């Protein structure tokens, strides 16, 4: 076992059945784990984006119900989505939706029992980030081309 350089590592030390010391891995809890690593940062981002997508679902329900209620209420909803706050919000939700979708594919890949080694984890993590940026840009390019 290597020398401990960080006092927080003391909580990770355990004993094997033969009595020898072992440094045990820890789940990412906030006091003892660097949450700014790509692995843990992308993990909590998946949960945050999933929660934020609920707001997008409320917007979708509003849009559909307004369309069913009639032209006046639909125009009011469209006015909000076309306003400055509406556009910024929808842009954010587009990125949120693509991130959660791509990170979800990454989770399904993990569920198949593959991709757990560190190089692959970093590779798929970067792919999720680049893919989110690319798909968000593509979505808004399509929207702007239709708009203009």
């Amino acid at each position: 076992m290597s020398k401990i350089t960080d006092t927080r590592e003391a909580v990770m030390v355990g004993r094997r059945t033969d009595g020898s010391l072992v440094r045990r891995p820890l789940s990412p809890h906030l006091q003892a784990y660097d949450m700014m690593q790509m692995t843990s940062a992308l993990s909590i981002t998946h949960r945050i984006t999933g929660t934020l997508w609920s707001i997008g679902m409320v917007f979708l329900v509003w849009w559909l119900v307004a369309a069913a209620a009639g032209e006046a209420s639909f125009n009011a909803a469209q006015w909000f989505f076309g306003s400055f706050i509406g556009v910024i919000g929808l842009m954010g939700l587009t990125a949120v939706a693509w991130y959660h979708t791509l990170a979800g594919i990454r989770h399904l890949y993990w569920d198949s029992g593959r991709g757990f080694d560190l190089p692959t984890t970093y590779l798929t993590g970067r792919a999720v980030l680049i893919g989110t940026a690319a798909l968000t840009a593509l979505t808004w390019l399509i929207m702007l081309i239709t708009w203009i």
Partner: protein
Amino acid sequence: MAAPTIRSLRSPLGRVRGMGSAKGGTHHWWMQRVTSMALLPLTIWLVFALARMPDASWLEVTIWIGRPFNAVLLLSFLAAAFHHMAGGLQEVIEDYVRGDLAKVGSLMALKAACFLLWLSATLAVLRIAV
């Protein structure tokens, strides 16, 4: 010959079923996977469909929603998405909300909100389409 020692109050059948204190086994976990796989194509379809109608009028939008193909996919998306959303937010509440009263209360409020939102959107699509 010594009789086998019973070290647990749980029955052998209960242990084999592996439900534990969560009572649901892997059902919740599995349903999140099933709905996520259903949502994958539906989300890609919906996002790009919505991206192509930023300045659509009420008439254009209601005609689009009213087409059987779009209506069926919308209804499927709403069902899968609200199931997945209820399951996901349930995990967040179970992890972070402390105290049984607050936890059970917010879980019930979550399920009620998801059900009402799903029903409203579904009714809206059906009203336009039918």
